[in-house]
């Protein structure tokens, strides 16, 4: 209980602190320290949940079960490593004059605020609070994306704001509909509490629930980046500062998907059909295929990986849509995708700083100038493209095998998309990593521990999933159904 309080309060307090001192020297360290504390608290919380099982606290407004505790831990971990990375990265940006001190303060404060909103969204039991947290996450990230105040970044942030704002409004309508259905069963008091809803889900009115799911799916799906609601995603990834791209890809998309999954559980319980699953599979498939064809056109390296994130979200959505064993794979894929994609963004951020540009054609020979960044990018890309022995392959293997078993028709489509993605993306990455260098060394030592920490974890998950982790995934998958 105290752990959860710490998990939620630490980022909030740090955000307040940084709002005051975020432009001073040492702000990056405060940022990291706050994130570390959050991580420690999350770890403690995880241990607590593993030993004692799910818990509901604070007047039932918050609850932690195997499904969200693993996402909380993941979020705290990636948040911490991102804060480590953002220190030197932001210092370079500051030195280059791309950011004033005031912006730096805004950045630091908003970063922690963003972490706070996401952790809240993950741990809350109340669908209303979930929605509020998601909305707050949108607002903070809008500020983060527009941090540079360049025309492109403003444009990206505006599109992000409008599209996700509209999306989130749909989600609210869906939430209202759920309340509408639940009120008759539960009365006013607990009608938005997920645990209560879950307990009575089979008594909820199916028609209303299915309509509610449509709204929720479109709403949170916009934030997840499902095609055709994905149009903001690549822009926001490309134009914001790289640490923000890392957390957007690595965390925000996961949290949005988490919201969908929670709702799916209720809808499945009410409908007893595969309605939600089918919808998720259809959109997942579309979301895997379309971005694959975008990849080869990309000239901006962060856009490239933004589209790759969309593709992976599609894959995860598809996996959850299938359900069963695939839910396990979907959770695993969430984990490895977060770790890998944020690692890639770390490497990409430094690479872009070295080259002074994000244009792929102007980044050449990274491995020569900085072997660690070059290899980080290369290995990370190979991992994200589903190359064994990295963990992404593990989850893709499980997703594909489940798909072969239950939906053989979908498998060739998935594989074609993955193949096209491989061909398009690897070509570009290879060009950046290898060749005659056009990049200069960095003024500050880059923080590359996060890159290799993430890739190391992903490699481990590719070869060996620790039994307790597997057990944990299994429990979570059982919750999802």
């Amino acid at each position: 209980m105290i752990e959860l309080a710490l998990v939620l309060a630490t980022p909030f307090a740090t955000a307040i602190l940084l709002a005051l001192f975020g432009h001073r020297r040492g702000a990056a360290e405060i940022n990291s320290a706050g994130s570390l504390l959050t991580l420690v608290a999350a770890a403690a919380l995880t241990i607590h949940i593993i030993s004692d099982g799910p818990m509901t606290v604070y007047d039932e407004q918050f609850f932690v079960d195997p499904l969200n505790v693993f996402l909380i831990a993941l979020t705290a971990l990636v948040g911490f490593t991102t804060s480590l990375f953002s220190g030197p990265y932001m210092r370079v940006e500051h030195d280059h004059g791309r950011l004033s001190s005031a912006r730096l303060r805004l950045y630091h404060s908003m970063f922690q605020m963003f972490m706070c909103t996401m952790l809240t969204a993950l741990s809350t039991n109340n669908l209303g609070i979930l929605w509020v947290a998601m909305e707050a996450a949108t607002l903070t990230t809008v500020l983060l994306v527009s941090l540079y105040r360049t025309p492109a970044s403003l444009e990206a942030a505006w599109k992000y704001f409008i599209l996700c704002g509209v999306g989130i409004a749909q989600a609210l309508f869906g939430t209202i509909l759920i309340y509408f259905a639940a009120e008759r069963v539960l009365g006013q008091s607990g009608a938005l509490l997920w645990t209560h809803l879950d307990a009575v889900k089979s008594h909820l009115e199916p028609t209303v629930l299915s309509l509610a799911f449509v709204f929720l799916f479109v709403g949170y799906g916009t934030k997840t980046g499902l095609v055709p609601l994905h149009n903001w995603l690549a822009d926001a990834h490309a134009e914001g500062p790289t640490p923000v791209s890392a957390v957007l890809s690595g965390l925000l998309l996961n949290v949005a998907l988490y919201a969908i999954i929670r709702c799916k559980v209720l809808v499945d319980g009410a409908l007893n059909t595969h309605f939600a699953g089918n919808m998720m599979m259809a959109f997942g498939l579309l979301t895997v295929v379309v971005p694959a064809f975008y990849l080869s056109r990309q000239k901006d390296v962060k856009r490239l990986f933004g589209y790759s994130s969309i593709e992976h979200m599609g894959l995860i959505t598809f996996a959850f849509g299938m359900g069963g064993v695939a839910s396990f794979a979907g959770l695993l894929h969430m984990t490895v995708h977060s770790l890998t994609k944020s690692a890639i963004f770390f490497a990409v951020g430094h690479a872009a700083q070295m080259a002074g540009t994000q244009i792929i054609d102007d980044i050449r020979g990274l491995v020569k100038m900085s072997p660690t960044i070059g290899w980080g990018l290369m290995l990370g890309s190979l991992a994200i493209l589903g190359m064994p022995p990295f963990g992404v392959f593990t989850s893709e293997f499980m997703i594909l095998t489940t798909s072969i078993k239950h939906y053989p028709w979908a498998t060739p489509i998935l594989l074609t998309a993955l193949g096209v993605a491989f061909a398009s993306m690897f070509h570009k990455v290879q060009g950046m990593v290898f060749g005659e260098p056009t990049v200069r060394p960095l003024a500050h030592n880059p923080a590359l521990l996060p890159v290799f920490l993430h890739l190391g974890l992903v490699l481990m998950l590719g070869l060996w999933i620790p039994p307790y982790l597997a057990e944990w995934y299994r429990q979570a998958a059982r919750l999802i159904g």
Partner: protein
Amino acid sequence: MIPTFLHAIPLSSQVINLCAALMLLLAFAMLAQRRVLTLINLFMMQGFVLFVSTLIVALTTNQHELLVSAGITLVLKVIALPLILHRLIRKLSVKWDIETLLNIPTTMLIGIALVIVAFNVAQPISQLSGTITRATIGIALACVLLAFLMMITRSKAVPQVIAFLAMENGLFFAATSATYGMPMVVELGIALDAMVGMVIGGVFFFHIRQQFDSLDIRQMERVKEG
């Protein structure tokens, strides 16, 4: 069955139904409006209708929380936001005429189709409704969809934000009147959202104007696929 039911409707519910109709009417009016200032005024009126309906629900169901909601609505949607918008427009010297991407009659036709769809979609929900105001959920949905349509058709940033706020009005209406009051936290959330959204939007207006020399969002088409 419905006619017999109509007689049994108490006055408060009839007022709420009237409010719902007014909401829809105002939504259509906003969709059709060509001038920014009128648009803001219409938005303000919609806010006021919302306030009235929330107040009635609060009084009839004795939910004191809803009184707070109503108060927030009044302060925020009827007074604060319109004021800020007015000032912004003067400060940014926005042209008064709104350019739409689609001509108004077509937009209206599409709007009517939307209302039909919304009612049709909401039908099973209203049939289920335990509250006396069964039609309101459909109207709230229609308001949301109409605001959505407005966002699509407007080419300037300010009307787009107003449309966005109008959409929140529809949601708020659904949350309070249609369901007879959701937990407080949601409404607070919506209010907060509208507030912060407005602030962010305002901040953005300055920057966009600075960077693009205009608030015409049609200029913001640089970040795209070849």
